[in-house]
């Protein structure tokens, strides 16, 4: 048993339906978890790991 922060206050996770998912592509690895109570979404968290960089490619002029 664990407490989950929800829109209705902290709740025991055994009272909730848990749904999880993962997205893994070239840009990110994302995991998310949802808790539902009688058809109502009461908690959703997400963890995104970035994979791509912002890159500046530079050059210098030749004489």
């Amino acid at each position, binding site marked *: 048993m664990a407490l989950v*922060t*929800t*829109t209705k206050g902290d709740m025991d996770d055994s009272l909730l339906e848990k749904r999880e998912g993962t*997205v893994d592509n070239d*840009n*990110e690895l*994302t995991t*998310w*978890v*949802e808790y539902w109570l009688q058809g109502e*979404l*009461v*908690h*959703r*968290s*997400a*963890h*995104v*790991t*970035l*994979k*791509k*960089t*912002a*890159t*500046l*490619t*530079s*050059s*210098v002029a030749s004489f």
Partner: protein
Amino acid sequence: MANTQSMCTSFMSQLMLGEHQLGTATLVSRTSLTAPTTDTLKAALYLASATVNAATTVYSATGEVSGTGYTAGGVTVTNATAPTSTNSSATAGVAFFTPSASLIYTTVTLTTAFDCVLIYNSTQSNKAISAHTFGSQTITAGTFTLTMPANTTAAALIRLATT
């Protein structure tokens, strides 16, 4: 309207002007001849409907997420690692920087989809550094964590490369 991952163009010229000091301080401040300083970076989240891209010059609340537990302007970026540079050949090399900890937005409710984080320099008049996109998210009474890529020549969050 959409967000686009990119380094902010204005950041490039500001680097040449010495307007940003990322990571651990190694240089004296621009306002002090004796005391090294480090700029404070922040990370703000933007709605999927916003327009944040290479043309973004400063942080703006326009298009920023809002909701319970989220403070406008976002969270402070842990900025403890100095930028690094390395040469890959006689004519090429890479300088790179990655924040040294994940960005964590704790116990927030953000019901409108967002897909972008803007890194900006709050010490230097909120000047924009880079925009990073990801799949649209919403958060309900939960935590949004954005983990940085590895701080390496190939994967660092911000890279300046010569070819």
